[in-house]
């Protein structure tokens, strides 16, 4: 009887411990995800000079060459480019504007990222 009670306590302890550990890991994962989103900084620029979809790909190609940029999405209709930086990347704004100029376009104002980009 004493032995069975001991087994029950141990099983209960392990179950609670495991459940807590799993829940904790999940929480930690969520925390990492949030950190990662925060680190993936998004910058949005107004760009003048694009007049067709072909211009978009020319600009994206230039901006993606910057060390620390993970993604660049340009829109000739919206006249802007959205630049996503890698976690912990330090990219000077001058580097981005220089690349926009190398694509033969003119950088305009730096815009606020849209809500779903933050």
């Amino acid at each position, binding site marked *: 009887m004493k032995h069975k009670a001991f087994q029950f306590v141990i099983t209960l302890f392990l179950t609670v411990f495991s459940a807590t550990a799993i829940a904790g890991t999940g929480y930690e994962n969520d925390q990492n995800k949030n950190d990662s989103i925060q680190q993936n900084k998004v910058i949005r620029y107004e760009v*003048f*000079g694009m*007049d*067709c*979809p*072909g211009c*978009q*790909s*020319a*600009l*994206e*190609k*230039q901006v993606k060459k910057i060390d620390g940029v993970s993604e660049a999405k340009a829109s000739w*209709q919206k*006249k802007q480019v959205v630049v996503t930086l890698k976690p912990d990347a330090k990219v000077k704004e001058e580097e981005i504007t220089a690349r926009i*100029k*190398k*694509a*033969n*376009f*003119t950088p*305009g104002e730096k815009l606020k990222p849209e809500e779903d980009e933050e």
Partner: protein
Amino acid sequence: MKNKIQGFLLFFALLIFIAPKTHAEGISVDAGLTPAQDRIIVRMQYRNIINKMGDNKMAMHMMPVVVAYGLSPDITLMMRNGYRAVGTNETMMEMQNSWMDPFFMGKVKLFRHNTRKYVFGLAGFAGTSFPAWNSSAAKTYSPVLGVNASFRPNYWAFDLNSAYEWGNYHTAEKSSEARELQLNLAISRNLLIPGANNLVFAPVQEFSFVRSRPQNGETHSFGFVSPGFQVVSPHFKFEGLYQIPVNSAGTTGMKNGGRLILGVRFMF
């Protein structure tokens, strides 16, 4: 970057290598401003050209290939070559299937103003065809100088190309067989395709004017009115044009007929 330059040079060398059997052939100059740095554009075309001499017809199929590279935002290098196949030839003129002489061109940005409402720019260009080794029939150069002007307000595009060409210039005689002034105006408007974010359909209307001054013969002018279209995506462009001749009777008795141009452009 280094690999891309090497790749471009290799492709360039390949085109030069395949050019030994060329004859002199007029090659029109591309309109437009200088593209982005490191931009590689490959354009392949099929041209169906019909000329007439009296009731006799001559049909040719030309397949020019253009490779352009943005050396910097201000300088573009361009090379063309192609193959000409003679379909029907009911005229007395002798015409053979052949490679065209390779054509090299450099384009320089002179001015470009990008605004929220429009883009306006000017680019100058200079180029020439080269007689390729011993197989070139004409053994001549055809140097060309010109200016491209581009005005693009919102979804509209107005591209004016003006060029002056010394056709078949003999270096020994220091004279060309004909001098030509070429003007080309292309007007187009981008139309958005519903449901296709990155795809544009653009009807195009081109007007071409050529004033030719042959060394032996009278100066004459002719032109084309050319409706067409373009479908543009970020890395691909498909274009079609039909050139309708205007005042096509030249001094040689050969008249220009209609010309169909179909092309595809890849942009890397």
